[in-house]
């Protein structure tokens, strides 16, 4: 029972992480029609920068702040130098160009920090575990991740639906040329949206760094998961990304933990141990296939596109 | 009396809160050229899109050649003999003029799941295609790239494509749109020749064309048919005059 609760919490944590990455991805695609494969390296960069600043300052808090700012700066730099020339291009060009950026940055990170995985200690305040239920302890830091992810989700919701900036973002997502014709500096709007998305990804990387090993290419796998999230959620929909992210986080975690046990109900232990992990690894993609079969544009498709 | 080739029963379509087609009943008789006119925003293009299958009505039935086609897809309706032109010409710009038409023949004639053989060289497809191009006066441009045709020539090409389908009903969505005086005259001449061969539903703004070609005219206003009748009757109808009061008639 307590294993189930732990895995549910783990699933929520993965889900929240996926949301942070997917939100930026779906925002950028929704507003600028730009598919950014290099979003995963932003996440990776956040983690590396956190390690670097922690080594320099010795303070987790300073590392967080500096890493976030540095990730933002680097993201804006990339936007200025490469990405803004791609907004008008077709998606194939964007895919190829951002793929090139991934190759470059994955190698650059290896060049600067070496190929060996790095680690970051959990901030002292949040290290250790707390007792949630009798017999059930859970790492505090993971709870912090869940809480901060939910907080960001709330912040995004308020920003997008209650502020003027959010209104511009929603309008831009619907009809960027029109918004521009109304006198809004669309370039600045795009930059703000992109910067925000970049920060979200960097933030995710910073938060996960103490738990995962920081290594080149760590952004790639999670990027594709984020794609699955936004495809299921509906490209351009933050609400869809939130729901889909939690769904996928839970399904993937619970699937991997309990697939063998569930299968043992219907087959012998030995084949269950082979088939179980195989099905667990395919589970979220099968989910994606199922959703897309009935809703080719996701659960919350963009309107008027 | 022969059954109508097209019958719309109680068609309804809403976009958001706007009722674009309202409880619409309409018929196209066999062999006639039936024009639909109406002010901008009356719902003419949505009507054509519902008939051809690009837009699904919220309720109502569409009967074509005796069959209920309301649930059928666009290709299925086309295979039954429903051809259409588009207000903004829709052709294959990267293909040659004759290939554009030959594809229409290919769709009608038989299996396209043939993986070998040079389709562009098949006489069985090219000959009817050339004949259709002849009808619209484009046979000299058969080998030109369709994307390089003039606006009027592209319109004519769309007509040839529709012809090659040997349609049971031809839907024309504002063929005169954007056409100059000469082009309009040529198009009217072509359409007069085609009249009678198969029923045509002509949605149009250009009144010269409408009164030159139509056997019957229906007036569409706010998603409903105001009245239907012969050109003279419609021209004299006080309701129609009132509806068009202040409207520019070309």
């Amino acid at each position, binding site marked *: 029972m307590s294993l189930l609760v732990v895995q549910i919490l783990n699933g929520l944590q993965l889900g929240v992480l996926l949301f942070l990455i997917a939100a930026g991805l779906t925002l950028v*695609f929704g507003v600028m029609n730009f*598919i950014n494969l290099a979003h995963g390296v932003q996440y990776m960069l956040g983690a590396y920068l956190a390690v670097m600043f922690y080594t320099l300052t010795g303070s987790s808090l300073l590392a967080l702040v500096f890493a976030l700012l540095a990730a933002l700066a680097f993201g804006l730099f990339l936007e200025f130098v490469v990405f803004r020339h*791609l907004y008008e291009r077709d*998606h*194939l*060009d964007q*895919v*190829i*160009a951002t*793929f*090139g950026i991934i190759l*470059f*940055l994955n*190698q*650059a990170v290896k060049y600067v920090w070496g190929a060996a995985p790095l680690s970051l200690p959990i901030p002292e305040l949040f290290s250790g575990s707390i007792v949630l239920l009798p017999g059930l302890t859970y790492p505090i830091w993971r709870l912090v991740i869940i809480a901060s992810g939910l907080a960001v989700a709330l912040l995004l919701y308020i920003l997008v639906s209650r502020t003027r900036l959010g209104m511009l973002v929603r309008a831009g997502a619907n009809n960027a040329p029109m918004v521009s014709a109304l006198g809004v500096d669309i370039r600045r709007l795009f930059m703000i949206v992109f910067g925000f998305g970049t920060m979200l990804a960097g933030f995710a990387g910073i938060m996960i760094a103490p738990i995962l090993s920081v290594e080149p290419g760590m952004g*790639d796998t999670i990027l*594709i998961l984020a*794609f*699955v999230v*936004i*495809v299921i959620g509906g490209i351009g929909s933050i609400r869809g990304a939130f729901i889909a992210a939690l769904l996928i986080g839970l399904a993937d975690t619970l699937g991997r933990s309990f697939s063998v046990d569930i299968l043992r109900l219907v087959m012998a232990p030995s084949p269950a141990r*082979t088939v179980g992990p*195989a099905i*667990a*690894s*395919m589970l979220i*993609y099968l989910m994606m*296939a199922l959703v*897309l079969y009935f809703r*080719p*544009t*996701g659960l919350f498709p963009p309107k008027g596109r | 009396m022969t059954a109508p080739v097209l019958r719309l029963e109680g068609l309804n379509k809403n976009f958001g809160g706007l009722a674009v087609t309202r409880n619409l009943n309409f018929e196209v008789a066999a062999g006639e050229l039936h024009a639909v006119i109406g002010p901008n925003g009356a719902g003419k293009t949505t009507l054509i899109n519902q008939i051809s299958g*690009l837009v699904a009505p919220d309720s109502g039935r569409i009967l074509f050649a005796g069959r209920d086609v309301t649930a059928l*897809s666009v*290709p299925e309706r*086309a295979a039954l003999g429903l*051809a*259409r032109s*588009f207000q903004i010409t*829709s*052709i*294959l*710009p*990267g*293909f040659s003029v004759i290939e554009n038409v030959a*594809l229409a023949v*290919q*769709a009608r004639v038989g*299996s*396209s*799941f*043939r993986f*070998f*053989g*040079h*389709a*562009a060289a*098949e006489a069985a497809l090219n000959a009817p295609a050339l004949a259709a191009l002849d009808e619209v006066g484009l046979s000299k441009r058969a080998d030109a790239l369709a994307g390089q045709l003039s606006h009027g020539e592209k319109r004519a090409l769309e007509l040839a*494509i529709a012809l090659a*389908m040997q349609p049971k009903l031809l839907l024309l969505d504002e063929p005169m749109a954007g056409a100059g005086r000469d082009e309009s005259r040529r198009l009217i001449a072509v359409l007069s020749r085609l009249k009678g061969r198969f029923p045509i539903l002509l949605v149009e703004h250009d009144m010269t064309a409408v009164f030159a070609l139509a056997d019957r005219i229906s007036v569409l206003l706010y998603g409903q048919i105001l009245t239907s009748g012969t050109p003279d009757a419609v021209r004299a109808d006080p309701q129609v005059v009132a509806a068009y009061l202040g409207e520019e008639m070309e």
Partner: protein
Amino acid sequence: MSRLPIAIFLGFALLPMAAAFGAETYLLDLFMRVMIFAIAALGLDLLVGFGALVSFGHAAFIGIGAYAVAILASHGINEAWISLPVALVAATAFAYLTGTICLRTRGVYFIMITLAFGQMAFFLASSLAPYGGDDGLTMHARSTLFGLSPFKHERLFYYIVLACLVGCYCLCRALVVSRFGRVFRGARENATRMATLGFDIYRYQLAAYAISGALGGLAGFLLANATDFVSPAYMSWQRSGELIIMIILGGLGTLHGAIIGTLVYSLLGEWLSGLTENWKMIFGPLLVLVVLLARSGLLGLAAQVAAWWRKQHAEPQA
């Protein structure tokens, strides 16, 4: 066949003789792999270049074909007339099944979904513990053909691969100009118009997707025999990305462009990786530049140069 493809195939055919003067095994191996990936690239060009279906999961078909061979081999089944059909059927079936879902979507959704399905195949292979999992599976014997081992002789194997490449090229050429091909290409130009003519585009695209999967499966069969090894990395999304780059590099929608692109990409990679360990840092920006500047690939550039040359020599002296 026009002159350029013939020249390419002739070049491949003559290579072993030229290689006899130098590092024969290395060159034969390198160019054989180029040809194998070119077969897969042909299938991808069919989809991307002629159908505007940007499939980002193409490497999965190669991997599935390769794994079919290796898995059968691990159970003692080495006969090519069993493992080749199995490889082809497996890859085609995967293509067909995922295609039924992918092709319901358009544009960016399609790219992302093909990417995701490719990942699915990758993770499935990684989780197959009895067949090596993450580490991959070694093949202890290459495929046999009625008791003979043609794939053990480097030169014979090389020419078999060349024959497959030429065959696939001719197949794709025929496909493109056939009735089927015309409908498929028409769907790229104007899907709405094709529908109003009576063509159910979905069926044609699904067939093309399955065919391109089969070509990938063939490449996988040959690759497994060439490397005596299969691993999930064969299906990674980076591999899928590389395939797309290869066909753009050569020139989309030309078929022999796919072969040229594969050749140039592979040779460039070989050369750069010999220069520095960090060659991907050069390769990455290079790709970005290619995309931004030379969108129609090397063939497009060559055509532009040729046109400029002709203009220079046609104009009367000023």
